[in-house]
Structures are given as structure tokens and as C-alpha cells.
């Protein structure tokens, strides 16, 4: 929405718009709330955006583009960065020729996640600079800044956002168009780009030197600013915590940090010295407060209870008042459930009826844990269903072992289930194993995104397709079945019951489109039939 140059945008839209304005040549990622819309908007705005099978691949693709001198972006949710951590840590050593911004969308309060990890720790651990916006205007500007900083220092830069930044809308005034980045070319530089130990040793030293320089730059950076108010209370804050705190304490002085790694330590020291009480307000881990205290700055932190969940104006007022007493519980909302007619329903009904021990995974189907199904026993992280199921089978006695089933969604299987399947063939339990791949033709959980198993790209255009049954057979599984339990519930139940008895490896693919995606899928399939030449 645009009015006299003003726009009302979500943080995700603002990041996408900035990426487009800055000439980002490639955006790669894997869907994950609250980050998903960044690449979707980037694509809608005409940017080249793609879903990769998982976040590690996405970051590697973006890194390759940045090695070639392009401006690139990788976007993912907080746990996605765990998957992409391996390339991130060494990309800090190799650096980039172009620009590389890694967007980490954290989810304090677990609106839609399996944990509330605080990815500010990754900036420190991987040694990459980190910027944190407080609203959509800053999301726009700090994306531009992150790209500039990355190109200037030749380092990947982490843009750390949270659910309330991603999904809140506020007003954005875009900057005038800027010059496009130079065209990509590859320059050979093996000492910087090939991390054998001899070169990596030097690269590590170079990285620490750069960070020290960035820390000096940071002390003067306009991205950190002081808002002078009363000197009886000074608050140091960043991200969404800053806007809550401005509202909770309108008369206080503020040190508002836009760069949260490296930290402007001397600026913080001077700020703390200039106020009678200096309080750090932060959502999640005590990252800022610990770092400032380690530098010898006397700052006050928050009681442990405020580490859990999101902050808001009311909670910040309590922090300021030093009130650590129990907070009134939030009235329970109505929990989500599988849609009526969801193809996952029949599968979980059957698993429950057969008394299976279900090693589950993440997606819509995780709702199989709730009544009326109550047919899931473990859920850890994407892909874990297979490894965890195998581990259970290895050590349990025969009777229990034969009831263990791993259940994984199609998008999750491509994301991180394929290596689990390889493990299943390589280290088969004595009782065999049963893996069910729930193929509903989409990544439903995060809003119906395409993935490599749908044969369509982020923008729904046809491309090569991974066929699970072919893959399983090629890897050496002989019992591979494709069924539709909604259509033939009894047949599915018989098949599963006999597979559980067999002491062999079985892969069952339950295929029926997600109810919400079915219409679009059939329309896209029809369109593709009329245009057969879509390549592989």
C-alpha cells in the first residue's frame, strides 16, 4: 500500500523491498515462520528468489553468488540457522567479494516453532556482524546497511529479526533508487576461498582483525544512537524491545543499538556513566547484559522470568519496577487442529488404532499429537523422525521395537529426511523399520510453499521433481508402497499392520494433496499438461 511515498509494510515486506532496491541478485531460503514471506515478496517484486531443499543449501547457494561478486540474501527462521551453521561459520573466514546478508527470523514466545533459541549468539560464535531493526522502516534501512557493510568489509552480515518485526506492519518511507551493484565476475583468490588449514589459520586472524576495525567503526555508527531524556533512568535496548521500552518509559534516556555485534562498548560505558540507573531491556537470552558486564560496565538486567516468551509494554514496566513476581497466566486460546478432511487424519487414526510408537516430525501433521488422535510420541527437529525412530528400534525389545514407525512430511523429507533414509539402509535395526512419508504435495505448515518434491519452483513454475518412491528404490528399499489412506483406509491399515510384522525395511508414501492446496495443484498440473516442454 503506497500513499505519497509512504508505505504500510510488514518487516518481511520491508526487507524484501530493500533487497530489491539494493539490486540483490539472488535470494535463497527454506520456508519457516516468521521468515517465509521475505522471499515470497522478493519474488513478487520481480527479484530472483528460490526455495532450496534446506537452509544449509540455501546459504551455500547465496554464498556462491556472493563469491562471484553479486549481492545475495539467505532468509530463514532461527532453527534454520542451526542447519545452515556449518557454511556460516566458515563463510566468516572466506568472506565474500560481493555482499551476503543472512536473515535470521527468531521466534521468542514460540508462536510457531519448537524452541525459542536466541540467534544473537550465532553472531558472536560465527564472528559475523549483526544488525537488529526495531520496526519496518528500520528493517528496510538496516537491510540496505547490511548489504553495504557486507560489501565494504567483505564479510557475511546477520540481519536478526523476530516475529514481531517480521509480521508487524508499520510505515516505511523508501529511499531514492540507488546504483545497481557491479556485474558478477569471478576472481581467483584461493588463499581466501579455499579453507585448507594453512589458509584458514590466516583467514581466522584476518577475520578477528576486521572485527576489531568494525568494533571501532561501530562506536561512531549512526546505527546506534542516544535519545536523551531524564538521567534518572537509562535504558539500553535493541530490536522490538526498544519500542516496548520507549512506550513503557517515555521520559527515560535510551541507548538504542542497531548494531548488536560487535557492540559499541565505549559508547555504552559512557551512556551508563551518564545515568543514575542503567537498565538493559532485551527479549530472550541475557546477551547484551552479559556482554556489557563482561566489559566492566555496571548495568542492571532482568529477572529470569522475563527470559521466557515475548516482551511487551506491560512486562517492560514490570522489569523497570523490579517486579519479579509471577505474572498472571494468559487465558488459553483455542488450539489449532488438522483441517476437517485433511489427508493426514486417516494416517494418525490408523497409527493410533495399531498402537504404534510414533517417531514424529514437524509440519501440520505434528497436530497428530493432540486429541482426537494422540498418535505421536516424539518430535524434535526437522528430519529427526527417522534417526530417532531407528534409535528406538535398535535398543527396544522386539515387541515394542516392532511398533515403532517414523512419520515425516514430504517437504520435511526433502529438507533433512533423505540422509535419515540412507542411515536406515546402512544401519538397519534387527526388526527392520517402517517409514511413512506424508506426501500432501506442498509445505502446508508455513503457508503452502513449493518444494523439490512438487516439481514447481517458488513462483510455481514447473521444474525438475524429486520422486520419493524412485529415490527409496534406488537407495535399495524393496518394500516401497504408494497409497491414499483417505480413499482406502482399510487397505492402508492392512499394509501398515503387515509391514510392522515383517522385520524388513518399508517405505510407505501416503499421497493425497493438502485440502487447501488441492485446487491450486490441479490447476497448475492442468496448465503444465498443456505446455509439455518444461525441461528437467
Amino acid at each position: 500500500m503506497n500513499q505519497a511515498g509512504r508505505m504500510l509494510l510488514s518487516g518481511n515486506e520491508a526487507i524484501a523491498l530493500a533487497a530489491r532496491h539494493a539490486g540483490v541478485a539472488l535470494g535463497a531460503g527454506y520456508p519457516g515462520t516468521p521468515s517465509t514471506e521475505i522471499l515470497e515478496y522478493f519474488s513478487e517484486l520481480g527479484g530472483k528468489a528460490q526455495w532450496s531443499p534446506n537452509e544449509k543449501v540455501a546459504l551455500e547457494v547465496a554464498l556462491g553468488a556472493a563469491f562471484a561478486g553479486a549481492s545475495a540474501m539467505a532468509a530463514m527462521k532461527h532453527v534454520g540457522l542451526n542447519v545452515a551453521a556449518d557454511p556460516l561459520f566458515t563463510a566468516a573466514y572466506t568472506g565474500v567479494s560481493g555482499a551476503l546478508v543472512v536473515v535470521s527470523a527468531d521466534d521468542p514466545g514460540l508462536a510457531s516453532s519448537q524452541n525459542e533459541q536466541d540467534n544473537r549468539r550465532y553472531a558472536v560464535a560465527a564472528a559475523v556482524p549483526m544488525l537488529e531493526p526495531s520496526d519496518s522502516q528500520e528493517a528496510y534501512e538496516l537491510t540496505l546497511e547490511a548489504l553495504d557493510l557486507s560489501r565494504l568489509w567483505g564479510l557475511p552480515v546477520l540481519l536478526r529479526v523476530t516475529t514481531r518485526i517480521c509480521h508487524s506492519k508499520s510505515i516505511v518511507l523508501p529511499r531514492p533508487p540507488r546504483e545497481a551493484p557491479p556485474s558478477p565476475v569471478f576472481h581467483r583468490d584461493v588463499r581466501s576461498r579455499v579453507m585448507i588449514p594453512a589458509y584458514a589459520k590466516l583467514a581466522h586472524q584476518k577475520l578477528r582483525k576486521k572485527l576489531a576495525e568494525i568494533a571501532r567503526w561501530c562506536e561512531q555508527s549512526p546505527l546506534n544512537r542516544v535519545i536523551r531524556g531524564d538521567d534518572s533512568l537509562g535504558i539500553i535496548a535493541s530490536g522490538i524491545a526498544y519500542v516496548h521500552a520507549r512506550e513503557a518509559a517515555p521520559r527515560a534516556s535510551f541507548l538504542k543499538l542497531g548494531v548488536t555485534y560487535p557492540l559499541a562498548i565505549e559508547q555504552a560505558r559512557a551512556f551508563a556513566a551518564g545515568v543514575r540507573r542503567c537498565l538493559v531491556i532485551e527479549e530472550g537470552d541475557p546477551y547484551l547484559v552479559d556482554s556489557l558486564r563482561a566489559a566492566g560496565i555496571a548495568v542492571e538486567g532482568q529477572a529470569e522470568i522475563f527470559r521466557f516468551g515475548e516482551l511487551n509494554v506491560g512486562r517492560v514496566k514490570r522489569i523497570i519496577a523490579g517486579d519479579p513476581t509471577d505474572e498472571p497466566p494468559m487465558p488459553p486460546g483455542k488450539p489449532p487442529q488438522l483441517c476437517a478432511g485433511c489427508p493426514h487424519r486417516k494416517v494418525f487414526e490408523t497409527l493410533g488404532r495399531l498402537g504404534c510408537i510414533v517417531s514424529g516430525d514437524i509440519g501440520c501433521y505434528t497436530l497428530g499429537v493432540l486429541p482426537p488422535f494422540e498418535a505421536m510420541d516424539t518430535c524434535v527437529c526437522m528430519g529427526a523422525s527417522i534417526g530417532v525412530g531407528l534409535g528406538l528400534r535398535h535398543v527396544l525389545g522386539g515387541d515394542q521395537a516392532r511398533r515403532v514407525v517414523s512419520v515425516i512430511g514430504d517437504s520435511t523429507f526433502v529438507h533433512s529426511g533423505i540422509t535419515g533414509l540412507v542411515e536406515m539402509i546402512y544401519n538397519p535395526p534387527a526388526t527392520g523399520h517402517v517409514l511413512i512419508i506424508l506426501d500432501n504435495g506442498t509445505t502446508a505448515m508455513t503457508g503452502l510453499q513449493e518444494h523439490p518434491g512438487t516439481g514447481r519452483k517458488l513462483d510455481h513454475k514447473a521444474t525438475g521433481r524429486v520422486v520419493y518412491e524412485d529415490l527409496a528404490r534406488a537407495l535399495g528399499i524393496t518394500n516401497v508402497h504408494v497409497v491414499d489412506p483417505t480413499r482406502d483406509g482399510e487397505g492402508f491399515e492392512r499394509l501398515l499392520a503387515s509391514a510392522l510384522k515383517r522385520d524388513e525395511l518399508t517405505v510407505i508414501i501416503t499421497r493425497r494433496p493438502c485440502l487447501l492446496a488441492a485446487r491450486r495443484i490441479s490447476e497448475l498440473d492442468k496448465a503444465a499438461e498443456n505446455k509439455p516442454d518444461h525441461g528437467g
Partner: protein
Amino acid sequence: MADRVTNVVVAGLGGQGVLKASDILAEAAFRAGLDVKKAEVHGMSQRGGSVRSDVRFGPQVFSPMVPNGSADFLVALAADQVEPNQPCLADGGILISPENVDENLLSNRRCLNVALLGFLSAHLELPESHWLAAIRSNLPSPLHEANCQAFAVGRKMGGIG
């Protein structure tokens, strides 16, 4: 209204159009030249579950979330979502629920969300033209007529018409 922040919470169940309603409200305030912030938690995880969206507008808005006990209006699209969201209302805050409009007057009952916005609009100083423009820009054209009709019904029941 002009010199302070107005806080509205829209609440309901997944699929009822909570986010659409709050988008329309936020845009109407945006078109009036005000500072606007809107917060919600979305993703597909709310199939049928509770959904809440906060909209705040005025001269300058900091936090995007309406602090508990400070909503001027709670617009509840489902009767059973009134109780869990009641704590957001300020003393003297106004509850707007499906009871406030006669659904039989709507040409399409799925437009209840917009009808309740019409009722809300009667209590706000945002010009009607901004509301109608916001409805049109947030919905595909085949739905304009039914939604504008629903808005008018709600606005009338709210006391303007």
C-alpha cells in the same frame, strides 16, 4: 482521538477474516495520514485456532502490540473469543461482537468481519472514503459489493447512516 493513540484488538478464529479486517482498519488509518502499527502472529499454524491482531494508530506509535488493559475497542468475530481477549480492554473500552450486527441483513454472511468494522467505524473519526478505499484495495473486486454492503449495515447499526 487525534492527539492520542487509538488501540483496537481484532480477535476470532482461523478462517474468519481477522487478519483481513485488521488490514482494512490499518489501511483506513494509514490513508488518514496517521502513524500506524499492526501486530499479529500468523502462519498456517492457526487452522481453526485463535487469531488476534492488534492495530494502533495516532500521532506516534511505539510498540506494535496493544498493552493489556488499554484497548479502546475489542472487535470479536466469534462469541467464544470474547472471554479470552477481555483482559486487553481498557476501563470503559468498547466490546464489539457478532451480537452488534444482524447477520440476516448481510448479503453474504462471510462478510461479518467487515460488518463489524462498519460498526467500529461509527466510533472512530476516520473518513468513510478511506474505509471504502481500504476495503477495495484489500479484497478482490468480485467481493467489493458484498463487503461494502456489509460495512454499510454495520456502520448503520453503530449509529451512523
